């Protein structure tokens, strides 16, 4: 499987990753090599095999509906790049 520059651009956009023009070819070739490795999977017949998402056969434990968290806004916003009046700031969102 060989990826084109345009494929990389599309994936990079979905992943919101800046990949510069001059990196594109290298990234495309690295990713293509990885996909070649991955495609060894095609040799295996998996008809009727249940996909395994979790290593353990456990089911979800449920938490009681109770408020256990206090307001820690100042503490958490201590590591935030930009805040004002308790809000996180981002460049203007256009709806």
């Amino acid at each position, binding site marked *: 499987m060989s*990826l084109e520059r345009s*494929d*990389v651009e599309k*994936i*990079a956009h*979905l*992943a*919101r*990753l*800046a*990949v*510069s023009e001059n990196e594109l070819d290298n*990234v495309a070739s*690295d*990713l293509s*090599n*990885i*996909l*070649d*490795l*991955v*495609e*060894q*999977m*095609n040799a*295996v017949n*998996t008809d009727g*095999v*249940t*996909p*395994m*998402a*979790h*290593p*353990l056969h*456990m089911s*979800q*434990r449920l*938490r009681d509906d109770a408020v256990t968290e206090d307001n*820690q806004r100042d*503490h*958490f916003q*201590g*590591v*935030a*790049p*930009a805040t004002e009046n308790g809000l*996180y700031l*981002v*460049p*203007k*969102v256009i709806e």
Partner: protein
Amino acid sequence: MQEKSISELAAGLRAGEFSSAELTRFYLDRISQHDEKLNSYITVTEEAALAAAESADARLKSGDADLLTGIPVANKDIFCTNGVKSSCGSRMLDNFIAPYDAGVISRLKGAGAVLLGKTNMDEFAMGSSNETSYYGPVRNPWDTELVPGGSSGGSAAAVAAGLCVAATGTDTGGSIRQPAALCGITGLKPTYGRVSRFGMIAFASSLDQGGPMTRSAEDAAIMLQSMAGFDERDSTSAQEAVPNYLADIDADLKGLKIGLPKEYFDEGLSPEVAASIQEAIDFYRQQGAEIIDISLPNSALSVPVYYVVAPAECSSNLARFDGVRFGHRCDDPKDLEDLYKRSRGEGFGAEVKRRILIGTYALSAGYYDAYYLKAQQIRHLISDDFAKAFEQVDVIMGPTAPTTAFGLGEKADDPVSMYLSDIYTIAVNLAGLPGMSVPVRPADGKPVGLQIIGNYFQEAKLLNVAHRLQQETEWHKARPATFA
């Protein structure tokens, strides 16, 4: 002093031979003396460590102490530590002072361990050589031109060089076992769910598992005793009771059934490593164990499956690093998209980006079935291979890594060849089983690790098997001369 085991140190602390403050000072001095050569620590928390040592001394006096009380340990920088930079080896989190403690950190603090600092690692635990760290590569204490393995390379190097008594690591595809093997120490990846993932910065959620990296199986047992256990903040945390890992650590191995998968001794395995592994297996045979040839037919597929599953999960797990609430934010974003793309583009290194891109691709419309779903199906087959094997044997043995430590930069430009260095460890993560690496006879002066794989929640058995070897042989006591 740096040769003493945890139980020896615990005894010394109780006998008043030295205080935790003195012991901590000793290790802090070693770090400042030696770490320049290794780069194994990202952050050393000297003040906090000395304060913790004082509390530990008080606790020891009061008689209410744990085996780990007052023992200086180091934590992989993937574990969030309240008030301490928790960078995960990434520029993205270079400015991130964690506002809370990971489950593992809380437990170690609760036991009274002295936390020396945070160890270097491959960025977001993605790597097998510790060369992807934003903070520069870690060097192998046995030969500083070699890699220590990864991703828990800082912890492995620090333990091997005696820059801490023990350390924590995490293992998603071999990240505890492979560096343990390459640095000549003991590393244990517990059963998935045995150690809380809360506060452990996620790489691939269904594979990640924290565990101890130590100089002996006995030390690993003591560390795991503190680290393991149910955590209500982690939905995937197992509610299984934690046994006393020291109780049967010395049990006789007569009749133990050891499976040797033929796929782990194929042409990819270097002959020197094979010879050392064979010697260790002979030891077990002499101990009365029964050696059985087995097959794990889908082993070879574990690497391809892993490089779909792990990147897919990571592409989603790492989406939260967006420059909004914490972490790196680019200068003067011109709009929202620019904020995302540049913050992430600048904050992540090349390997992390590669995996995010592969994972994004594998989950995207039109490719999900061919990649992600297919990988999850083969994951099931791989897991079934182990289940069948464990109907027949008690433990599975083989090499941890196909070669000894390779040179810095040797594989850095070839992601695929780097990925193949985890060929023997990855399947264990896919199945969620516990696995261990213990040092055996070095090859050409370089450490070699024997991998021991157990059935679910059989950590005590693995520790027992490893401990018996370490009772009868000296391999685990070999130390790099430079750091004596």
